[in-house]
């Protein structure tokens, strides 16, 4: 899903780890290592060392950054994750963040920590911002459920409060502006206010983070203060906060950020968030926090799913080398995800991690052995037989888009406002050229005829394929049916030429048919007919109306038929 930009040297230094052992990996092997993170190398600039990597797994936001990719590779190289101390520690006198009542109506949750000892470099800052953006944008659904702020710690006096204020009560200078603005001004004028303001649209009171001196830190999830909330190259003491609507997602995002900063050498100090009422994690919530629970999985289930007997030792090793905390109990493994992950929904998620950690190449493919009978559906068989016959009759098969325009399917066919002119229409139209589904085949054939006046004549064209016919009695509002349409165009073509072809087709399909004169706006009156099989209409045939030809800008007589194969099948 997300595509991120990272740098070779940054990745290498993050791979080194605390023991100082350089585990730099040759670029040639990078793609192989990226399998561990479901990453695909999209671009590599050898001059700048820039790497563009797409991360596929939308449930693993921890991997959407250089630190996360390096971490997953490092764990594999080291065999296990070296635990992050700050998750286990309980500081004696932590900083406090006080949540005032009323937040539950607007944006209930907040998590925060401090990070000291990592001096922000230019590249490091770009990575911090990238992670912040990807998390808030994709994981946080465009800041709706999660948004993140980073600040210079030295400017903040604790405790920080998270509360609601009136839109014009507080003013501060937001990032990207020169002067102080009220919150309502920010919503009306600031680009971020315009972009993310709708998240707070129905609120009469707005959220704000302020420190003990009442200095605004930010107006979440819109914008930070420029005075406190602008991190610059060289800063080495940071304050990070996450706000949002889902407590676990909020804490998980902070956990990821804290682990990333720790990987870059910062010392993380947790912050205690004090809620006015109890949350699922209590009234006082220390953040970051490892709130994950271990899952007990039967060895049998793992081995069955993987199709291979691995034994407890191998499974334990594989999971540990992927970051899990694992213990083995009789016939089961008790596996706990590292604190920066929260994507374990089902046993199978653990199974995949076993396979990935071992490497897919370690599993020998086995052919599924059970016997099954293959075959085509009845409609496909009928369609194939009809196509063979049309080829035998000298027709060239064509193939068309099904999504087209009302202009082609209705106006050019003189069908506007008639029973034949109804189509399945698209609601969120991007382009009128692709705004409705074809309801019959003739327009698809005329499309080719209109574009091919310079191809030598005669033209004998056909297409077999699906159409969508509006039908109020159907649960989907339309029926998808398979039809075959054919067209002949040349200077002296006439009704009986196409009639002969229909006659041959019906004969070999074993369908006795008759024609009944009909009025149809697309055909010349007196030269058009309804095709009846067992007295039921299954299609139309005729000489195409000159006005239709004019609308398509076709300067050659055209005769055509359109037979509904689904209806033929239904008739038995």
């Amino acid at each position, binding site marked *: 899903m997300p595509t991120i930009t990272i740098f070779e040297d940054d990745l290498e230094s993050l791979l080194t780890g605390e023991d100082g052992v350089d585990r730099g990996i040759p670029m040639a092997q990078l793609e192989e290592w990226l399998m561990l993170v479901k990453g695909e190398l999209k671009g590599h600039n050898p001059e700048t060392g820039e790497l563009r990597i797409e991360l596929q797994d*939308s449930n693993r936001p921890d991997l959407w950054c250089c630190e996360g990719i390096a971490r997953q590779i490092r764990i594999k190289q080291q065999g296990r994750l070296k635990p992050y101390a700050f998750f286990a520690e309980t500081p004696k006198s932590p900083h406090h963040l006080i949540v005032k009542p009323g937040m539950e109506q607007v944006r209930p949750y907040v998590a925060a920590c401090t990070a000291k000892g990592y001096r922000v470099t230019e590249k490091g800052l770009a990575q911090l911002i990238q992670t912040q953006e990807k998390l808030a944008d994709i994981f946080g659904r465009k800041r709706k459920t999660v948004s993140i702020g980073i600040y210079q710690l030295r400017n903040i006096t604790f405790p920080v409060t998270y509360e609601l204020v009136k839109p014009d009560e507080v003013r501060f200078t937001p990032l990207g502006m020169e002067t102080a603005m009220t919150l309502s001004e920010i919503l009306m004028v600031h680009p971020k206010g315009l972009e993310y303001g709708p998240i707070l649209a129905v609120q009469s009171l707005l959220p704000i983070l302020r420190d003990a001196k009442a200095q605004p830190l930010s107006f979440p999830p819109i914008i930070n203060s420029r005075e406190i909330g602008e991190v610059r190259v060289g800063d080495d003491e940071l304050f990070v906060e996450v706000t949002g609507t889902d407590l676990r997602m909020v804490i998980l995002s902070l956990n990821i950020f804290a682990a990333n900063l720790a990987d870059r050498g910062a010392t993380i100090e947790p912050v205690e968030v004090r809620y006015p009422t109890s949350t699922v994690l209590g009234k006082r919530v220390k953040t970051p926090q490892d709130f994950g629970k271990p899952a007990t999985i039967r060895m049998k289930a793992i081995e069955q799913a993987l199709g291979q007997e691995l034994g407890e030792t191998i499974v334990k090793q594989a999971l540990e080398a992927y970051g899990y905390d694992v213990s083995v109990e009789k016939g089961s493994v008790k596996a706990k995800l590292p604190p920066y992950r929260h994507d374990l929904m089902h046993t199978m998620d653990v199974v995949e991690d076993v396979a990935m950690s071992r490497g897919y190449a370690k599993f020998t493919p086995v*052919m599924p*052995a*059970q016997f099954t009978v*293959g075959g085509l559906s009845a409609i496909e068989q009928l369609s194939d037989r009809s196509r063979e016959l049309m080829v035998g009759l000298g027709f*060239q098969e064509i193939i068309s888009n099904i999504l087209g325009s009302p202009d082609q399917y209705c106006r050019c066919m003189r069908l506007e406002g008639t029973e034949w002119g109804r189509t399945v229409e698209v609601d969120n139209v991007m382009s009128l050229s692709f705004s409705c589904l074809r309801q019959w085949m003739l327009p698809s054939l005329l499309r080719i005829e209109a574009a091919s006046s310079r191809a030598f004549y005669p033209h004998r064209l056909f297409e077999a394929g699906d159409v969508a016919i509006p039908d109020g009695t159907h649960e989907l509002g339309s029926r998808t049916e398979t039809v075959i349409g054919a067209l002949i165009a040349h200077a002296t073509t006439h009704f009986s030429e196409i009639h002969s072809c229909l006659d041959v087709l019906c004969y070999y399909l074993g369908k006795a048919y008759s024609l009944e004169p009909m009025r149809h706006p697309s055909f010349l009156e007196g030269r058009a007919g309804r095709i009846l099989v067992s007295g039921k209409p299954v299609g139309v045939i005729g000489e195409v109306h000159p006005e239709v030809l004019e609308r398509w800008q076709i300067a050659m007589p055209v005769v055509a038929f359109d037979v509904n194969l689904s209806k033929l099948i239904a008739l038995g």
Partner: protein
Amino acid sequence: MDISALIDSLHPLEIKVLTTLGLRPSGTALGSEQLAGAAELEASQLSMAVEWLLAKSLITVQAETVTPIVSLTKIGEEYYQTASPIERVLTAAREATGTGKRLTIPDLQSQGGLDPSDVSKAVGRLKKEGVVLIIQGGCIETTGRPSPTAEALRTLLGEMHDSPKELKSFTEAHQEVIEDFAVKRGNAKEPFRVDERVARSFMLSPDGAGAAAQLLTQGVAEEVSQLTPDLLKDGSWRQTRLRKYTISLRPPRIGTGKKHPYREFLDTVKTKLVSMGFQEMRGALVETEFWDMDALFMPQFHPARDIHDVYFVKEPSHTTAVDEPFLSRVAKVHENGAETGSAGWGYSFDVHRAKRLVLRSQGTAVSARTLAASPHIPGKYFSIARCFRYDQVDATHATDFFQVEGIVLGEDINFRTLLGLLNLFAREVAQAKEVKFLPAYFPFTEPSVEMHVRHPRLGWMELGGAGLFRSEVTLPLGVTVPVIAWGLGLDRMAMVALGIHDIRELFTDNLELIRTTRGLF
């Protein structure tokens, strides 16, 4: 060259041309018209015979002259009837000057039958010639000088009204006027058209001279070109000399009945899948979000379900009902996992959203419906389904395209049999012996695999994705055995086989291209 054999293969028209030239003194060249006259041939017959003889090197082109011919266009004929705009403007201006009336360009433009742009052009030309002045207030006044252009036009229209003439037959001044008022690219509204008439003259080559001499001395035997039923009936073919043909010439082109090359490619894939024991599934173009996405455990907040990724149906916007018990079961699984052993997505499932009608965005929707319809166990299914994505159309994105997908159900299904199946696809569909399996992510499978293969001609390429359906997908639909879900990305293979580089060409409207594309799969 064997002249006798050559003479036997000559067409009667060719003989006429050869002997006509052969009767003239050696080295004589005749133009097309003279030659046609002397040989008593129609122009079309002569041109056929000449082309054949040139191909056989029996005659040569002695000279080729290009003569520009001027004729009147439809507009020219109109000017001849009603006078040209410049004349009409001049007449009006003289009249105004004579009577002292004010005449402005807008006045002229509002006069019947004159195009505003013609008026501006005419006034411009007259002003340049000093025939009119534009005085204060934008009024036009004549100076009394004659207009050479107007006079030339009148003369030329009269002269050419009857018949086209050679451009060279006019004076240089008139030639300039013709050039100025001739139809050009981007300017079709002019009275004259200059066409180039190419005139060629022909003479015998040495071989042709030999053949002609022999024809003239031996005379032409009575020949018949077509063996007819009458000749067969009375046995008179025995006394008849059947002309020999020059069979090395290219034959005339004929139209043919043929399958579309892309459909042909899909047919071969279909045949292979059936031969591997797969049963075909069909589905509808319009689907509910439920079957298209919810049943596949894609959470309703998933980015791929956004208004910018899926086409929504306008009317009706929602289905009346989604089949139970599937709707309630799937809703619970999304919310809390229900009995699937999953924690679920942990959000409140919107039943109304599940009923929203969309254009099918993935072939997996067809598989989901099959799972819910008591499939065979063990069972293998496939579909070649038309799908729609909300993409800007370009060389690599089409709004509607085919997805080749399917499922395999059975007690023996696991991660290794999944890899085994993919190996089989690699061998059968892409003729690949080397395969690489990469971890992948799809919302509805776990584990998930991406398969890269080394195609004999294309090199390493991604052939498809697959995985084991999550229990969150299978259990609510009533399937208790493991299920492989697989999809093949075949468009790239098809495009290379068809020699095209733009995905839009798969659905091209160019009949000539469709007729001439050979699919080599």
